[in-house]
Structure formats: structure tokens, C-alpha cells
């Protein structure tokens, strides 16, 4: 599904290297987790994969089902099935959440040569998905993320993901800021989407989330590299001992 090889990334503005050779392969239907200290490059990796400006890929490649991601515009990557749940979802004043969703859904359908969803079908769909995530009608009408609480923003990201039905989902610290119940809702939302053809890359600092969303593989990222890859146990190790030993081992 997702194949990243030797990916090196600098900042465009200043001479600073952030990713220093990342190798990562996520197979179809798999759930991978990435953990790692603050500033190690986890969000940068997710931004570079989704096509945000400001980064320069100096070496390496990233493909989604064989297609070169790095060569595509952000919207083409989305249409190809890539989705990023932002660590910090963006506010768009004046644009209704529902309008935003419908525009996004139809833009992707159009890009794939599918018919647009009719207003009726769209509404039915969005209401059902919103209900699962306990997002009320009022929140659907409000402008995108404006005045949403931290947890509401994260749930809203998952709603978008559910509506867009991507095949490769990257969740960047979607668990941060969620209360215990919301964490459960979001995890259930993610688990409901798990399928053979859909993969997940879950960036998190906490084992908590991984109790709900059981990963197949756990990677530890530090200073722009994946320094260790293992099974679910690796996350427990981090939870108990922190990163010190892992970092020392990698040196």
C-alpha cells in the first residue's frame, strides 16, 4: 500500500534537514503505529506525504499502490486515497462544516470520475456517521473547526475520514486532547473502518490509544529516522521505560 524508501527532507526556507532517510512499508489492511520523542519528525513525515508546501525532498521516494505520491498535488493525493487527520486541524471561518464536507466528497468523486453524491444521499450519510461520533447537528452547521474544543476538532477529523473513505489513513496524534469517552468513540470509529483494503499509520505518544486500536507494527522515530521497528510490545516498552534505552541502543 504505502512504501517509503530512503526519504530525506529539508526545510525549504532554511538549511535544516528534518527527515534523514526514512524507510517504511505499510501493507494493505495493516495498522502501523509511529512513536517517538517530540520534534523527531513524525508530523513532518505526514505533511510531506500529503504534499504540504515548505519542504524539499532531497532523496528517496514515497508511493501509494505504486503511484508516485511526491509527484502529485495535494488534492491528487487525496483523490488517490490518502488522508491525513491533522495534529492541529485548521479553522475556516464562515464555511459550514457540512458545506466543507460535501465540497470535499464531491471533489474527490469528480477526480475519480464518479457522479456527485446527491444532496439527499450526502445528508443521510453524514448524519449517520456524525451520530456514531456523537457529533450533533449543530456542530455540522458551524463553521469548520471554529470554536470547536480540542476534542471536537479531533472527532471532526475522524468524521471527514469516515466520509471520504480513504485507503491510506494517517492519524497524527488524534488521541491528544481526547477525554476517555471520546478516545473510545474515535477508536471505535477507526476500528469500524478497518478493512482488508484500508491501512492506517497512527502517530501517537501513548499506549492508551493502542489498547483500542491494535497495531500490527510499531515504529520508533528519532531525529528524522526510524530507529526501531517491532510488534505491539514495543509500544508497551516505551510506555514503561521511555525512549532513553532505545535511543542509546540506536547510537
Amino acid at each position, binding site marked *: 500500500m504505502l512504501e517509503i524508501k530512503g526519504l530525506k527532507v529539508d526545510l525549504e526556507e532554511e538549511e535544516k534537514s528534518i527527515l534523514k532517510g526514512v524507510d517504511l512499508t505499510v501493507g494493505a489492511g495493516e495498522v502501523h503505529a509511529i512513536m517517538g520523542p517530540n520534534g523527531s519528525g513524525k508530523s513532518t513525515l505526514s505533511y510531506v506525504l500529503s504534499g*504540504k508546501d515548505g519542504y524539499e525532498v532531497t532523496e528517496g521516494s514515497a508511493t501509494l499502490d505504486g503511484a508516485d505520491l511526491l509527484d502529485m498535488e495535494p488534492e491528487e493525493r*487525496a483523490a488517490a486515497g490518502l488522508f491525513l487527520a491533522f495534529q492541529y486541524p*485548521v479553522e*475556516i471561518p464562515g464555511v459550514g462544516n457540512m458545506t*466543507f464536507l460535501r465540497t470535499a466528497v464531491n471533489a474527490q468523486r469528480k477526480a475519480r470520475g464518479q457522479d456527485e453524491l446527491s444532496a*439527499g444521499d450526502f445528508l443521510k450519510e453524514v448524519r449517520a456517521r456524525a451520530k456514531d461520533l456523537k457529533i450533533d447537528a449543530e456542530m455540522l452547521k458551524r463553521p469548520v473547526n471554529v470554536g470547536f474544543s480540542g476534542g471536537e476538532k479531533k472527532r471532526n477529523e475522524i468524521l471527514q475520514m469516515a466520509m471520504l473513505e480513504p485507503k491510506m489513513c494517517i492519524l497524527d496524534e488524534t488521541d491528544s486532547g481526547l477525554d476517555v469517552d471520546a478516545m473510545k468513540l474515535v477508536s471505535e470509529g477507526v476500528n469500524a473502518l478497518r478493512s482488508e483494503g484500508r491501512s492506517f499509520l497512527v502517530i501517537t505518544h501513548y499506549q492508551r490509544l493502542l489498547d483500542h486500536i491494535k497495531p500490527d507494527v510499531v515504529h520508533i522515530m528519532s531525529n528524522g529516522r526510524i530507529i526501531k521497528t517491532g510488534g505491539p510490545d514495543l509500544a508497551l516498552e516505551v510506555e514503561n521505560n521511555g525512549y532513553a534505552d532505545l535511543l542509546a541502543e540506536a547510537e
Partner: protein
Amino acid sequence: MTALDQVEVKEGVDQETVDAVAQLSGAYKYGWNDDDIEMDYAPKGVNPDIVALISSKNEEPQWMLDWRQAAFTRWEGMSVPNWAMLKVADIDFQDLYYYARPKSMEVKPKSLDEVDPKLLETYKKLGIPLKEQAILAGVEGAENDLPERKVAVDAVFDSVSVGTTFQAELKKAGVIFCSISEAIREYPELVKKYLGTVVPPSDNFYATLNSAVFSDGSFVYVPPGVRCPMELSTYFRINAENTGQFERTLIIADKGSYVSYLEGCTAPKRDVAQLHAAVVEIIIEEDAEVKYSTVQNWYPGDEEGKGGIYNFVTKRADCRGARSKVMWTQVETGSAVTWKYPSCILRGDDSQGEFYSIAIANNYQQADTGTKMVHLGKRTKSRIVSKGISAGHAQNTYRGLVSMHPKAKESRNYTQCDSLLIGSQCGAHTVPYIEVKNNSSRVEHEATTSKVDDDQLFYCRSRGMDEEEAVALVVNGFCKEVLQALPMEFAMEAQALVAISLEGSVG
């Protein structure tokens, strides 16, 4: 305020915008010319003979001609105003045609069936209903269906009104809706009583010129207690080359009446700038209410700033009676140069004025627009919401006056003025003038300037929208409060226009 609560923009409308944009290949959609429509021109230039000629073409009575001639004499002694933040090439006022009429209109058609099919074709292409049929107001597939609605149209082509629909039906309700030339002939007493009482012939350079040479425009009279049964609208089309359009609109809402009026404008793409200098006067008596909405989409000139309409307009509403109300809503997307300040004279006690504006300037467009709220009566209220969007090399200025006179005790004004910049070569300016001459009134002014945020655009794009869709969505969000003030069909048209006007502004 009530006006805002009554109109609701439905969810999903933005999608229509996006579709409309996607379907359009070129930027300016109304830029064709109909050069095959044969025209009669008055000789170039302006002088007492031309003034007399226009008057006689319209078969006007002597008093009207005298009024025009007095205005002309005054105009000769005036000079072009230069206080606006506009760079305008000198206009040679003697090198313009002041009167252009399709040949087929020489003998006035008695009904729309007799109008030259070529003219009708133009309006059909513009999507303006000149047949008396109910138009479907709802968005297809929208959540709740809207009832069928009727809109009466007065179609003005260059210097003349081509026809007005639904006149008979309106007449039944007592509403007069016709071209101003017809009103001067048929209802001289009404015209005499009100014409020039809000914008006097001496008002300003362009208004004075208009008073001398106006050729046509719309006239509305709503009698006491009547709620106008349908929306009224006028569509202005400038077609002829080197021709100034000087239209005059007079709207009178008598005691306790209500009317909503829409104005739309388009013009062909021409290399040479064209002049449009209109005057709109609105009189609102006791307890009456008028909503006046404009979607101005004159040809803005090309990407290098060649051609386009010079739009110098004087629009003013006089809230004469107690508790009268006026609401101006404008979406200014076209024109090379816009000079326009729809104003409210709040004379009656407890009268209210509202002004909602979206002004978009792209490429080399220049807009200097805003409003004047003149509070004369007690407990008068006004509200100004202005959204200026600049892209390319454009300059966009909001200029607003709020004046509280000594007798305007306990009056209120609220002004909100937001500017949005797209790119780094454009400019936004806010020029508020505030005068408060009593100590019980309150004026609030808020202003913001921001840039289209890259993070917002990336967020939209990461969800599958392309760059132009993303910009249109973000900008429509920025304009939301004003779009909500527009009648439904206009809101959708305006949203589409916002997107079209900004084409090519990113990337």
C-alpha cells in the same frame, strides 16, 4: 437586525459555486459583443443640443428638458473629483457617445413579443428571464423546496429600456414599475415630486452629468401599505462601443410599503474603457422598507488592465419617514474602476440603514467604495459590514462616513470592515470618517486585514479540493455575512462570481 435573520443561505450552496466555476472556461463570462445589432447613435460629445436630442428621443415634456439643461450648465463649471484612491486616465467627455439605441427600438414595441429577437437573444444568453414566467428559485436537490417565485425585470440595453415584465400584474397591486422615460411621460407628477430630491442635480460631477444626459433607467412606486408582490429587478447591459451609459433609477416606497429590488450589470470585453455613471435615488416614507441589492459584474478589463468599465455611481436612500428602513447590499466584482458609495440619509426618527458590501478587485482593478450613514433623526440606527478582497495588482479602498448630527440623539452605528489579501502585490485601505455631534450617540468601528491563509488552503486541498476551489471556499466563507443578506438567487450568483473573479489569483 431583522434583515439578516430573515434570509438564510442554505448549506450546500457553496458547492454550486464550485460547479459553476468548473464549468466556465474563460474568466469573464458575459464578454461577447452583439455588434450585429444595428444601433442609432447621437453624434459624439455632449452639449445643449445633445441634451435636447436625448430629451426629444424620450418625448419628454418641457420641464424635464429645462431640468436637464440647468444641470448641464452647472456641470460645465465643475471639475472631475480626485479625492478617491484611484488612478484613472483622463476621460475625454467629448469623445463619447451619449445616446445609443438599437434601431429596432425606434418605434417603441408595444409588448415584449414585438421586441427584436436579437435583443431578446442577448438577455437569454445572460440568463435573464424576459418571459413572464415564474422562475424556480430553489437549488436543485436542496434540503427544503422553495416555492416558485416571480421576478419582474426591466431590461436596459445601452441607452434604452427594452421592456419590462409583469407590469400588468404589478399594476393590480398598485405598484408602478416601468422605465424612467415612460414614467416621465405617464406619471409626471410623481417624477416631478421626487426626482432630484435625494441626489440633487448639483450633487457631484458625475451625478450632475447624469442629470443632464440620463437616457433611461427604472422607476418604481409602491403605494401606501402595499407589500410588493414580487421582487423587482433591472438588468443593465452596455453593448455599444465608446458609449457612456447614464441610467437613472427612482424608487419610491410610500408609507408602510415594502419592496425588494435587484440590479445586475454586464458588458462586452472591449479594449477601450467605457463609462457608466448612474444615479439611484430611493425615497422611503414612514414605516416603509426597501431592500436594494446589486450584483455588479461589468467587464473588469483584461489581465493587464486594458479596457473595462469605469463605474462612477451615486446611490442614495432618503429614509424620510419615521421608522423607515433601507438595506443596501452590493457585490462589486467587475469594472476596471469602481467609485461608489451607496448612502443612507436617516432623517426620520427611529429609521434604520444597513449596508452590506463585498468588493473584489483582481488583476489591475481599482475599487474605492463604501457608504455614508448620515444620522439626522432621533434613535436612528445604522450598520455597515464591508468585505474587501484584493488579488493580483488590485487596489481596494473602503471609504465610509458616519455622521451623527446634533439632533440625532441616542443613535447608533456599528461598522465592521474586513479586508482580505491574496498575494503580495495588491493593497487594501480603510478610510473611515466619523463625526459625532451629540453626546448620547454611539459609534463602533472594527477593522481587520488578513491574508488568505496557506494552512487553510492546504487543509482544503488535502481533502481533495483543487487550489481554485479552495480559494473560492475560503473567500466565500470570509464574505458569508454579506452573502446572507442577499436574496437567494442572487446569493448563488454572487458566490459563483466571487470564485470567477478570483480565477488566476493563486498559483
